[in-house]
Structures are given as structure tokens and as C-alpha cells.
């Protein structure tokens, strides 16, 4: 049986990755300063690692079952 949190982790990790891609677009369009872009990218990156690791762990648990 699939872990109920798995789709939530998947969604949140994909959202973080999307933000990692969106921020440089905003920077390129001049809608964001370099410092804000770098801070935002760091924050979204940390979010990716947290949620993607939880997603991978949930997927592994499901496989074991």
C-alpha cells in the first residue's frame, strides 16, 4: 500500500524545483535583485532536498511493503 504522505511530498518537492527554475527567470527579466534571487534559490533548494528525500523514503517504504 502506498504511503498517504507520498503524493504530498512529491508535490512539494516538484514545487520546490519549479521555484528553483522560476527564480532565475524572474532575475533574467529584471524582476528580482541578485541578492534576492540567490537567497530564494538557496531556500527553494533546501526545500527540494527536504521534500525529495521524504518522497524517496516514502517510495522505498511502499516498495518494501
Amino acid at each position, binding site marked *: 500500500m502506498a504511503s498517504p504522505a507520498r503524493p504530498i511530498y512529491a508535490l512539494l518537492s516538484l514545487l520546490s524545483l519549479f521555484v*528553483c527554475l522560476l527564480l*532565475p527567470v524572474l532575475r533574467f527579466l529584471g524582476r528580482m535583485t541578485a541578492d534576492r534571487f540567490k537567497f530564494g*534559490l538557496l531556500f527553494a533548494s533546501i526545500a527540494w532536498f527536504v521534500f525529495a528525500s521524504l518522497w524517496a523514503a516514502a517510495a522505498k517504504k511502499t516498495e518494501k511493503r
Partner: protein
Amino acid sequence: MSPKIATLAARLDNLYEFDREPVTPEKLQPWTKFAGMFAGEHVAATEFVIGAFFVLHGVTARDLLLGLLFGNLLAVLSWTFVCAPIAVRTRLTLYWYVRKIAGPGLMVIYNIANAILYCILAGAMIAVSATAVGLAFNIKTPALTDVFPNSLAWVLIAFALGALFTLLAVLGFEKLSRFAQVSSPWIFVIFIAGALALLPRLGVKTDFSNFWEIAQTKIWNGVAVAGQEKLGFLHILFFAWFCNLAMHIGLSDMAVFRYAKRWTYGLFSAFGMFPGHMLAWICSGIMVAAVGREMNPGMMAYEAAGLAGVGGLLLAGWTTANPTLYRAGLALQAVTPNWPRWKTTLSAGAATTILACFPIVFMKLLDYVALYGLILMPIGAVIFAEHWILPLFKIEQYRAEKRGWTINVPALIVWIGTLVAVFLLPIHLYFKWLPGYGIALISYTLLAALGRKEAE
């Protein structure tokens, strides 16, 4: 077989025992696994350096794009038409197929050569990551022409990072592999983010209307920096093609494709080549141009994407050095008397760490990549000839295995002879492997035919 070689071969056989039998039909994998694996494996720390080097070598924008397009296409076709068909027909790893064709003695030599080459490659990855740490401590990155370390501080950083990577590889290879799977999509995004964020610095307009003009005049402007050789279309094409020569023409990815349902799964290598060896190289080229054409991956990543960029560089180095150290340790286990895995990984890591202190391992990375593939290529040619060409001429296959040879002497002669011949060829290093492959195929077939006549 001499007792010493027999012992070494037996030790190696034990290590690879788990994949001795051909893969059974129920273990075959869907195409998505291959696409995912290739996409994850080809975005490494060295991509930060390779794309940047193309800029420093004065490649023009047109030569770069066409060279990467056709070179990567040829690489994909090499996986599809050379590596995957043999893997699918035999369902064996290269290790067992080399043993069957070249004999256990030559397989031991091949393994040791591979281990040494792996250590140098991992050393380059650690050195690239060291530039990121050096940035935090304001340590000067070695110059393009540096062979030896330029300061004690650089040695300390490379050493510390090498020791850390080795320790982590010793502590848990499998957990790190899972972490690498999580990291790889993000590392790829960091390449794109860094390049995109630096485009305004180069003067690219928000509607991209002047991108091609900027690309031709400010990024790949065709002017090599002082001391760097100018590269053109053919150099780029060949580089993209041979960058993974050991894996496709050298057949080491038989280990992967033996799980493929069809040989056409080789086409899924495009998922690694075009994002990793095309887009990531283009991105690192943009980044180095935007930071004043200075080969300092750490500074480049920081300027482009801040701490996330530095993290990306470190992780790209770590996650790719980790399996490389593991493979080197595995290869070394044959020649180390009853050493456990941790001890061989530690030894490979120690050698790698020392190598990482020498900036030449990443400052001459393009040449090293060429040499790495070139050295292992003749064995790929021997396997190809044995598998496809010998049956065409009705020459007996697998004589080494059938007659219990320790070393298939014709294969050894072809390996050494091809390397001597290509080093004497008066052509650029990047182009040497292709005539070398032809030399190896023809000479091995001729030697096998001569062997048949003698036997008759």
C-alpha cells in the same frame, strides 16, 4: 595459469560473482529506468569545467552548437549500435565478457588500468569541488597552466575534501547513491539557473532578440585565451563523442544494457547526452564568459547562483566522485590480499586525494578525458571483433575460455600495439581513437585468423 594470476582472478571472480550469470527475462527493466539513469548520471562537477574550457579554447558559437549536436548524436548511436546489441545478446557485464574473450590474466590488467583511471577522474572531481571551498577561505585557485599546487592552502583544502569524500564513500556507498538520485535533477536545474541569471550581465535582452549576437561576440567569440589551443567544430564533435568512450565503444555500459529488453534502449542515452553534455556545457560556457573568462568553478558557481551554486558544485563533485571511488576500490580488491571493501576504498581514496592536490588533473581535464577513453578503447574493439567479426569469417570464438588461456596474447598485442600506433599518429589527440579503433578491429581479426591457420 600461474598460481599468482589464478589467485588474483579468483578473488576478482568472487567480487563479481553476483552478476556472473546472464540476466534472466524477469529481471529486465523498462525503458524509463534507462532514461532516468542516463539523465541522472551525466550532470557532474566536471561539466562546470568542460563547458567553460570550450569558451577558453576559443570555440565559435556555431562550431559549439553543431559540434555538440552531432557529437552527442554519435555518442547516442554508439551506445545504440555498438554497446547495447552486444549487451542484449550476451546479457553479461563487460567484466565477464572480457574474461571469456581475453582471459583472466588480461582481465586483471584491464581492471587495474581501470582503477587507476577512475582514481584520476575522481581526483579531478574533488579538485573542481575544492575551488568551491577555496572561495569561502579566499584561497587562490590554481592558474590554467599550473601542474603543481600553487599554495599550501590549496593542498590542505583538496586534501581535506578528498579525505571527507573518501570517508563518506567508506561509510556508506548505497545511502550516498540514493542521495545522488535526489541531487541530480536539482544539480541540473542549478546549471540552468546560474546561466539564466548571468545572461543580463552579458547584455542579453529580456526578449532574447540579441542572444545569438551576444553568444557570438561575448561568449563563444572564437578567441582563445592566452596559452590555450584553439578548438574548432571537429574538436567539439569528437570531444562530445568520445567523452564517454569507455562506456559505449569501450563497452563498460554492457553492465547497464544487459537489463534492457531491446538493443534500441541505447537510444535512451540521449536523455543523458543532450541535457548533460549539451545544455549543461552551454550553461557553464555562459557562466565563465560572464565572470570574465576566469577558470574558477567555485567563483563561477557563486557569482551565478550564490550559496546554492556553491552547494551544487560541491554536490556534483561529491555524488560523482563517490561511485567512482567505489568502482576504483572494487577493481583494486583483486590485488589486495583479503582486504575488506572499506580498506580498498580507503586506499583508492588516499591515492585520489593526493592526485586531487595537483591542479593539472582538472586544468587538463579535456586531454585526460580523451586519454581515458583512448587507453580502454582497444579492449572494446577486441570484444566487438570477437563478437561480430570472427563469426563472419568463420573463425572460432572464445578460444581463451575454451582452451583455458590465462592471457589471450593476440588481445594483449592489439591493446598495446594500438596504443603505440595511435600515439605515433601525427593527428590531434581528440581524433586518435577513431583510426585506433579501426587498427584494433583489423589487427585482432587478422591475428585471430592467423591463429586459426596455425591450429589447422
